[in-house]
């Protein structure tokens, strides 16, 4: 596994985490929450080799875990599982299509959110309206951010590919 590739894959994920926390800071006065799990996983699983992609989503998951009061490794395990499912299906999904990528991010986000509800749900029907509002808010923001984030990641991946090609040429 190339460490430079891994670092450049993790950089946009760290940026995404920073943006997600800032958005949550702004939404807190309205008692809303932005869950962006699908964005962390979808594009990497769709375009990257298995090892580097899995390592990147696991690192992003651990960063999310460290900043949330959940068992350390929860985000990482779920992101890893979602990554593997998408990686297995990716031959059937058009990689270059922005709409397909956005839809995939939305489905992944929806699935991960439901799993989190099942794991962490505070219980009782009283919380359902709040969870529904959080889900709607998250899906809208994911749909808005997905094309930009896909473009950012593909640019980072291009950088990695170019750097690796130049290195290989120099070695030759």
């Amino acid at each position, binding site marked *: 596994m190339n460490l430079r590739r891994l670092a450049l894959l993790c950089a946009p994920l760290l940026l995404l985490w920073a943006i997600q926390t800032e958005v949550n800071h702004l939404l*807190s006065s309205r*008692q*809303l929450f932005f869950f962006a799990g699908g964005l962390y996983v979808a594009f990497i699983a769709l375009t990257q080799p*298995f090892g580097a992609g899995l390592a990147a989503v696991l690192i992003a998951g651990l*960063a999310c875990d460290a900043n949330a009061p959940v068992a350390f490794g929860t985000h990482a395990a779920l992101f890893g599982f979602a990554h593997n499912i998408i990686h297995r299906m990716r031959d059937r999904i058009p990689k270059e299509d922005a709409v397909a990528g956005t839809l995939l991010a939305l489905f992944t986000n929806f699935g991960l959110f439901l799993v*989190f509800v099942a794991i962490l749900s505070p219980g009782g029907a009283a919380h359902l*309206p709040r969870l529904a509002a959080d889900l709607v808010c998250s899906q809208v923001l994911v749909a808005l951010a997905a094309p930009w984030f896909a473009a950012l990641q593909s640019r980072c991946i291009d950088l990695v590919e170019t750097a690796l090609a130049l290195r290989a040429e120099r070695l030759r």
Partner: protein
Amino acid sequence: MPSRRFDQARPFLTLGILVAVWLILPGAVKSFLRASFFELTAPVTLAASKVRDLQDFWALRSHSKTELIEAGRDQARINASYEVAVQQTAELKAEIARLETLLRLPSRDQYRLEHARVARRDFSAWWQRIVIRKGRDHGIPVGAPVVFSGGVVGRVAEVHAMIAVVELITSPGVRLAGVVEGDSRPISFQGGSNPAFAPPTGIVELMPLDIIASPTSPKRLVTSGYGGVFPPGLTLGTIVRAELGSDGLHKSGEVRLDERLGSLTEVTVLVPLDVDAPAPVRSSP
């Protein structure tokens, strides 16, 4: 064919092995990793908070001189009233100290006040936390109560070098003992569901039957002082509904919490004076 099947299952097998290794990993390693990842992301939180402050600074700079003069005049009025309050407080403190000496009572000064800026707010249906820009370097211990002008904010859940995480009383998992103002019987308070676009709420249980509260005649809920975390008399919220509980022996109800909890920018940590924490390295806000 079996080889192809194995190839298809290999990603899940790899993840399964990783999860198995993770499960048998010692707790100390996980704690170390958690702290490492938190400290790795802490500069991002701090930088974002400082940038926000800078943004506010430039926004305030765009105000006209007339607005500045008006704000200064208002501030001077507030300062004048505060100065009177400070003098009264000093007199009362001196009186308390004199009585404590006369009656040989232990000192009531149990806390040192540590003001801190809020670096990040993180409010979900599962947890409600804020990150403050002070931590171990400022002598903040885990479990210290955190307050603001509207009452109780929560308590310190995690402490790191430069920042600390505060769990809010609005968190569904938080439970503490409160009393209705003017009453001494303890009531169980718990953070409740926090509906979107609405003020945060809490739940009260084990409330005595003679306490009556409704939206038209709400009752102020304050900390009881039991449990040793929060000093008594700090505002938690107002009980706006009280109904007979399922056991028929107690009432349960709803507590309306301060709306400002959702937009906190500055809080005060009550650092216990008898805590065996290292002396603060820094004292600036």
